């Protein structure tokens, strides 16, 4: 099993600050939010984390160090590879201060490389970048790319513009040039520099954001990347969409497939149905796979019509409260989908950077 979304928690901020120049550390210590990272105006009413996980005694968090993740997410869930993803630091690219963002992104990437990767050969990681400053983001990709344990560049769902906008092209090109995927993880909509989620203004409650706010940003990035012809400009680009749901995909892509024919004078470079582009370049992390109230067969049929199982890669979202436990998810899938979704699709998607040990 390959888990494409294993979140690392910043249980001890000083462990990241040690990778930042001493002259800068007090700035991060003195911000209202953790390390100056833009954060949620809504809070989960109970807990962000699975309540059955062991926690760090000082911070009360699970997943705050490599031994915890090896125990819980690799050994505990049976992962052959776990791809580490930022959690709060997903919002680094939305900090108003691009210089502090660049320093913090560098530190977070160094932290993964120095304090996490060496603990287990099954660990891989995601590069976070100060995407509010494109040259700095590209420089950070160039700096990190030689370490092949980094398998992807991680961007937040919340953004200043959808990622097909030409300003982001150098970031996407740099990732593709190094054989890195680009992962877009829902979240941070409405925070820092990001626009509000939903397109209808800020939601009031966490449940509103969690149900649709995060899905809307993923839809917008998907639509934007395809419509701009991004994959014609960067033919080697691979994009993983994480935690935006997938049950909505058939409706959206069928609508897009219909519209591109009639609206093509504005986007005449679109030379194939959007679904065909999606199948070649885009994958969806499975969590949170929608609960269907007994209609799973209908979900499989709809997803098959838009390229499943080939477009799906398993993700647990460890250690969050809404994660999908791998055995539970695998047993829910149609039998013929299990191997590709849990393992093979990710191997093909990430390529040699995954260099995955034989399946256990």
């Amino acid at each position, binding site marked *: 099993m390959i888990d494409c979304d294993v979140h690392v928690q910043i249980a001890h901020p000083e462990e990241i600050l040690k990778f930042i120049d001493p002259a800068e550390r007090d700035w991060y210590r003195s911000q209202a939010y953790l390390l100056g990272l833009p954060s949620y105006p809504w809070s989960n009413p109970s807990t962000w984390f699975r309540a059955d996980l062991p926690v760090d005694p000082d911070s009360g968090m699970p997943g705050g160090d490599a031994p915890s993740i090896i125990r819980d997410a690799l050994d505990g869930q049976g992962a052959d590879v776990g791809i580490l993803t930022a959690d709060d630091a997903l919002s680094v690219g939305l900090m108003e201060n691009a210089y502090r963002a660049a320093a913090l992104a560098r530190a977070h990437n160094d932290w993964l490389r120095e304090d996490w990767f060496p603990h287990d050969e099954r660990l891989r990681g995601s590069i976070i970048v100060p995407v509010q400053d494109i040259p700095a983001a590209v420089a950070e990709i160039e700096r990190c790319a030689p370490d092949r344990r980094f398998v992807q560049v991680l961007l937040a769902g919340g953004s200043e513009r959808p990622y097909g906008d*030409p300003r982001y092209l150098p970031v996407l090109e740099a990732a593709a040039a190094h054989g890195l995927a680009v992962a877009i993880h829902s979240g941070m909509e409405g925070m820092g520099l990001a626009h509000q989620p939903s397109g209808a203004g800020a939601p009031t409650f966490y449940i509103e954001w969690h149900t649709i706010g995060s899905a809307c940003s993923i839809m917008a990035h998907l639509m934007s990347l395809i419509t*701009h*012809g*991004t994959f*014609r*400009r960067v033919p080697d680009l691979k994009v993983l969409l994480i935690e935006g749901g997938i049950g909505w995909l058939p409706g959206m892509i069928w609508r897009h497939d*219909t519209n*591109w*024919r*009639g*609206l*093509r*004078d504005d*986007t*005449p*470079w679109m030379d194939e*149905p959007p679904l065909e582009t999606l199948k070649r370049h885009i994958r969806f992390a499975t969590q949170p796979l929608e609960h269907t109230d007994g209609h799973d067969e209908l979900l499989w049929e709809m997803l098959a019509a838009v390229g499943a199982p080939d477009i799906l890669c398993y993700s647990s979202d460890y250690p969050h409260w809404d994660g999908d436990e791998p055995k539970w998810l695998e047993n829910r899938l149609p039998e013929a989908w299990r191997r590709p979704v849990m393992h093979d699709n990710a191997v093909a998607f990430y390529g040699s950077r995954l260099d995955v040990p034989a399946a256990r």
Partner: protein
Amino acid sequence: MSDWHDVGAEADITPGAPAIARIGGREVGVMRDPRTGGLVAIRNRCPHSGARLCLGTIEQRIEGEPGGRYALVDRTVVVCPWHGWEFDAATGVCPEDEAYRVAVYPVRVEGGRVLVEA
């Protein structure tokens, strides 16, 4: 076996004012290309959702490259009045999906009358 059918006076057909005739149980429209002045005879039913195709427009095709580059190309299309789908005026094929195609017919003018072979 196809025959030539008189569908109307050439002078009456202008851009936006096609001739419409029923030939062998099918409706055929003859449209005037505003750019070339030529005539296009096409089955008057969009294969997508059934609109009367000849109430649309005849346009020069636009092609493009990612990065916002646009170019008019040497290809004429009939544009459906409902959803804007395009059909090649010479072949009737939808360039976006060749599974969608509409019949086009030879057309000529004789003595001021428009004749369609169908």
